[in-house]
């Protein structure tokens, strides 16, 4: 009934993973790449990079929509929507929920993004440039423009009828989506939530990050003293969340439990991160999950590889964890920065760390940064570890911080 109370009594677990990334499509390939420290970026092919000084990005060059999608007609949807739908489909198959085992109305979809259908915007813009203005916009392309269609594509692909929402919180958007999906299952608004995010590589982001001085030429080396910035990337990612009861009843494989999440906003600068607010966000997440800093075994960093992010992030961790923080690695060193999908990939990596007993590495790492020489970035090689609780960071333009906490099922 209404108003709804805070009846978030249900425990929520992760039972399906669907990465569509530059280092692999599907959970097996993705896991193997994280373990091997495989790099997924390569020379740009999705737009003509000539004239750009730097020409590398983390494109998902192996993505063939028709090979993954079962219901969605790719010709009617933009690339980011295709990523979202493909990721959702893979995650539901991985969860063993692709055969109508749950009523359609009890499945919610929440997707996060930075720039939605950025390639559609770019194509429309190119039409306007070539055709003397907006009268050249192609109507069929305009129908693919709304960012809401990322979640709709996933709902359409799955044939599900619960809430379908796209959160546009820039580079922490997937974590926001996971948090919202977690709440929907916690409270019983949904039995299953398919959560994650998607984005596509585009010219304007490549140019913008370059001009901000935040783009790297060839490699992303987070937490290294000589780090030079990000590589833009793309992809789609989804996690299937369901109530523990539901998962146990159907005998599902359970990867991990979602313990809670924290959110706040720097409200200080659109681009520059604020270490104190990030530290506060970590504390909020810990409080929501009912854990202490010492309980955390691994941090999956936002770790963009820019000077300012990595410094602020390390500082925030030091504020909360003191002298002996847990290992903190950045998978962006391998995938590049997949924007709205990035923290979703981070959540999948954190889940795999718990379920698979290993820490994904920060590759391209050579020199400790004297400002945070105490940091263990899991340099260059993954390593076995028992991970009881993993903390996944997502920060963004607009100071939109969100941190999710995942734990081994007890």
């Amino acid at each position, binding site marked *: 009934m209404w108003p709804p109370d805070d009846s978030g009594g249900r425990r929520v677990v992760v039972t399906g993973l669907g990465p569509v990334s530059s280092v692999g499509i599907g959970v097996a390939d993705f896991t193997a790449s994280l373990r091997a420290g495989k790099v997924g970026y390569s020379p740009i092919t999705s737009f003509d990079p000539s004239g750009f000084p730097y020409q590398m990005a983390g494109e998902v060059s192996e993505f063939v929509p028709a090979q993954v999608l079962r219901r969605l007609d790719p010709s009617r949807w933009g690339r980011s929507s295709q990523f979202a739908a493909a990721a959702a489909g893979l995650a539901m198959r991985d969860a063993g929920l692709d055969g109508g085992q749950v009523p359609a109305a009890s499945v919610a979809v929440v997707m996060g993004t930075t720039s939605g259908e950025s390639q559609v915007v770019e194509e429309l813009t190119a039409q306007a440039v070539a055709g003397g203005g907006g009268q050249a916009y192609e109507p069929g392309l305009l129908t693919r423009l709304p960012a809401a269609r990322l979640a709709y594509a996933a709902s359409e692909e799955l044939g599900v009828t619960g809430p379908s929402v796209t*959160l546009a919180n820039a580079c922490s958007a997937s974590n926001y989506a996971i948090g919202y999906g977690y709440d929907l299952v916690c409270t019983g608004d949904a039995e299953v939530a398919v959560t994650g995010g998607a984005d596509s590589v585009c010219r304007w982001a490549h*140019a913008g990050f370059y001009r901000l001085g935040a783009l790297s030429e060839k490699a992303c080396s987070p937490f290294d003293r000589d780090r030079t910035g990000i590589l833009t990337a793309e992809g789609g990612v989804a996690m299937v969340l369901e109530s523990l009861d539901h998962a146990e009843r159907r005998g599902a494989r359970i990867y991990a439990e979602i313990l809670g999440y924290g959110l706040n906003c720097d409200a200080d600068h659109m681009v520059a991160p604020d270490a104190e607010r990030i530290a506060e966000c970590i504390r909020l997440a810990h409080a929501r999950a009912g854990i202490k800093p010492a309980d955390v075994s691994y941090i999956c960093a936002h770790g963009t590889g820019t000077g300012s992010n990595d410094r602020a992030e390390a500082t925030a961790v030091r504020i909360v964890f003191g002298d002996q923080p847990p290992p903190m690695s950045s998978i962006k060193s391998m995938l590049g920065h997949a924007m709205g999908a990035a923290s979703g990939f981070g959540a999948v990596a954190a889940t795999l760390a718990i379920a698979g007993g290993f820490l994904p590495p920060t590759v391209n790492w050579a020199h400790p940064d004297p400002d945070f020489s105490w940091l263990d970035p899991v340099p260059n090689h993954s390593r076995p570890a028992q991970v009881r609780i993993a903390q996944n960071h997502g920060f963004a333009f607009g100071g939109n911080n969100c941190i999710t906490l995942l734990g081994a099922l007890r």
Partner: protein
Amino acid sequence: MTALVITGTGAVSAAGVGMEALVKALAEDERPRADPAALYPDPLPYQAVPALSDFSVRALLGRKGTSFFDRATSLAVVACGQAIEDSQVTLGEQVRCRMGVALGTTVGSLRSSSEYSRETLVAERPYLVNPVLFPNTVMNCAAGQAAIWHKLHGVNSTVAGGRLGFLDALRYAVNLLRRKHADAMLVGAVEEFTPQRAWAHYRLGAPGLPGEAAAVFMLERSGAIPPDGRPPLAELAAVTGGFHPGGDPAGLGQRLAECVGHALHLARLSPSQVRYVGTSECQGPGDEQVAKAALGGSLPAAVRSLDVAAVLGDCGAVSAGLQLAALLARYFEDPAPAVLAGWTVDGGYQVAVIKEPAHAGAHRQ
């Protein structure tokens, strides 16, 4: 949980800055129109549009910190400020950390992203873009700048719902309040009038005229923000929705009808008590069919329409927000339950039920 109440409103629309201008235009069916040539040099397919002709963020907020705002950001920051002021809340540090923002949008500022993209095509070198304008290209720019301007450290979120932007943001905010991630939320939506949106509207063959607006409301758990007892303007009695794969108008109308029934059930109201209704407008020929299927049989015949597009144009994600503003304006004289039913052509739908606050006669004058 205690009631979810609306304690402040802010609105910027073609009628002008503020609720008063909006209310007057709606009451007198004024249909404010501006000459688009006075706004942009670009050739446009419309001679008169429901846009603000003399809006200046610099005049309203000053030069410092606003120089690089795009139009959507400017409208949103101003409307958020009005909602804060109208709610009479005192913004201490603690309140600032527990007050969030959730804004609905379609694609953020299409002008900002498109012009950025354009620069990479027409500049002498493709990377010669202006770094200062880069944050404007991300969809959460308006919400992020609103938080910076008003120093709000609570949850900051942007919900890309297209025509459902406002209602999606409303539902999202309810979850945050329910789960105590925030004590109060500025919930709203924003769309700007630009050549890009005007041409998109025209080339899609959408009915009506492309408009612009920002509507923002202070939504809070009753009593969570001191001082207690600030008189609410209205109560949010329910919000719920879903997705209809395929989006065919007949099926969508059927789902929406069930959703209206469910929302009224949650609100403990019978259909016969509903006196106002707002629906999604300006999408195309399917609209009428959806509205008829959804509402035709269930609500009283005398129900009054809250639709605003004839006066204020197609305001996309803000549509239902403007309808809520129109409703609250009527609450001074005639408070009664309302249904806001929204949908998108792609199959998303959401229904909100608003009713008069529990203590009738507590309105501020």
